[in-house]
């Protein structure tokens, strides 16, 4: 069990997705173990989410319901979006295997849930101290949104690396480009710095590519496979929208204390309408 947590940790640290680690074309992680930890993290965040209903006079069953439904949310979202990802991945001619895409998705969901769970303490604190349901809706959307943005950034960057290592031509281009970048600087004084083209931040010059790029969110390579990237970007957008709507279908997660407890609510409205109306209610518009 602790071993699995260490694996999730190595994903977060970026150790599992370095160029050296993914040379054979896939993220080398125990999928089963990561999935177990992910479900646990989901349970933690689900309980954090359900605290509001339980503490403001609602039904305590909401705790259980949210804890069960939050992992389900990710599982169902993956179920809906995975086939299209696989098809589009094949369409753009990438040499990624289905198993490696799946492994990567599990890793990304692990990142999303780890971030959400780490924000859980803040959510619980506000749940206990707030009586505004609308505020809690927005806070939870923000917490999941932060997790989602970072997790999907992780997904995009890692997919990009995977595409790179699975294609000898692209990899060759990448290594050549890397040399071009580092060589002139090595001839100069130590004070030279490289400006990272993605973040715009100055980085100390280093000939070793891995020393230069340290986190799980950094980009490897350059514009060589823009096409592949844009397909993934579209997919990430679809994933977010489906995930958001799925959370609406599976509602209530937070549980409006003014309404009776129910495992599911009737079909009406959609996620985005609901978030806007929560914002409107909160601001008294």
């Amino acid at each position, binding site marked *: 069990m602790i071993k699995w947590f260490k694996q999730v*940790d190595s994903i*977060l*640290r*970026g150790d599992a997705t370095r160029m050296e680690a993914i040379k054979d074309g896939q993220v080398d992680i125990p999928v089963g173990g990561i999935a177990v930890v992910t479900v646990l993290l989901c349970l933690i965040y689900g309980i954090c989410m359900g605290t509001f209903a339980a503490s403001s006079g609602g039904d305590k069953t909401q705790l259980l319901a949210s804890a069960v439904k939050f992992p389900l949310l990710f599982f169902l979202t993956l179920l809906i979006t995975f086939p299209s990802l696989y098809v589009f991945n094949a369409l753009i001619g990438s040499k990624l295997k289905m198993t490696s895409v799946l492994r990567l998705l599990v890793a990304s969901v692990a*990142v999303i849930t*780890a*971030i959400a*769970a*780490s*924000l*859980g*303490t*803040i959510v619980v*604190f*506000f749940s*206990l*101290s*707030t*009586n*505004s349901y609308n*505020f809690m809706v927005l806070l939870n959307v923000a917490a999941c949104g932060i997790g989602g943005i*970072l997790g999907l950034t*992780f997904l995009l960057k890692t997919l990009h690396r995977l595409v790179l290592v699975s294609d000898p031509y692209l990899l060759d281009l990448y290594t050549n480009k890397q040399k071009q970048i580092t060589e002139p600087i090595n001839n100069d004084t130590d004070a030279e710095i490289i400006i990272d083209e993605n973040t715009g*931040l*100055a980085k*100390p010059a280093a000939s070793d590519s891995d020393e230069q790029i*340290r*986190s*799980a*969110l*950094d980009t490897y390579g350059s514009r060589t496979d823009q096409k592949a990237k844009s397909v993934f970007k579209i997919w990430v957008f679809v994933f977010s929208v489906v995930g958001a709507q799925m959370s609406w279908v599976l509602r209530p997660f937070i549980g409006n204390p003014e309404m009776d407890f129910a495992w599911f609510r009737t079909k009406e409205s959609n996620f985005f309408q609901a978030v806007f109306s929560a914002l409107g209610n*909160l*601001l*008294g518009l």
Partner: protein
Amino acid sequence: MIKRLLYLTSRILRADPSLVTVQARADLVRLILPVMVFGSIYGAVMGSYNGINAERLVHMLYAAVKVPILLTVAFAISLPSFFVLNTLVGLRDDLGYCLRSLIATQAGLTIILASLAPFTALWYLSFENYNVAILFNMAMFATASISSRIILRRYYTPLIQRDPRHKKMLNAWIFTYGFVAVQMAWVLRPFIGNPESPISFFRQQAWSNAYVKLYEIMCNILQ
């Protein structure tokens, strides 16, 4: 004991680098001590609004307990997300140093706060208005937090020079901590203690949202 505490405070205020080295890990507990001591001092002074009498002493005690709680619990609540975010952007190796810097800064904040306590006392002696007393205390807290940034900057400069990502993480921390601390302060009120309401550790119906209240007050003013 007092001599050692004073020595420690001077080291904290001067942002002594030896406080946050790896070797200082065991001393970390000692950094919590100033938060407790000086936080209580300011809390007691803060609770002395409307004079000191037997009844009021109870409230001073409450406030003295609550200020350290406010600072430490808000810190603890914000910690998990700081940990995961730092790991994700690849700064995990520096995390120990970051945490020690943040705790030292937190200790510095309470020392500064305690040093401002005499002003609060003088203010209470000079002016009656309860609402203005609230504002004055808010100003003291703001002054202490802004001044403690000097300590934070001294500790963080080498980190940011080495990796600019630390600046982003620091900003994220300040935002999260501020967001939580404001609500924590709201939940833990009364600190100053309105003389018209009975003395209690928590205020009745204290469970509400600082941000929603703030927005309502702003709307009232604008209308």
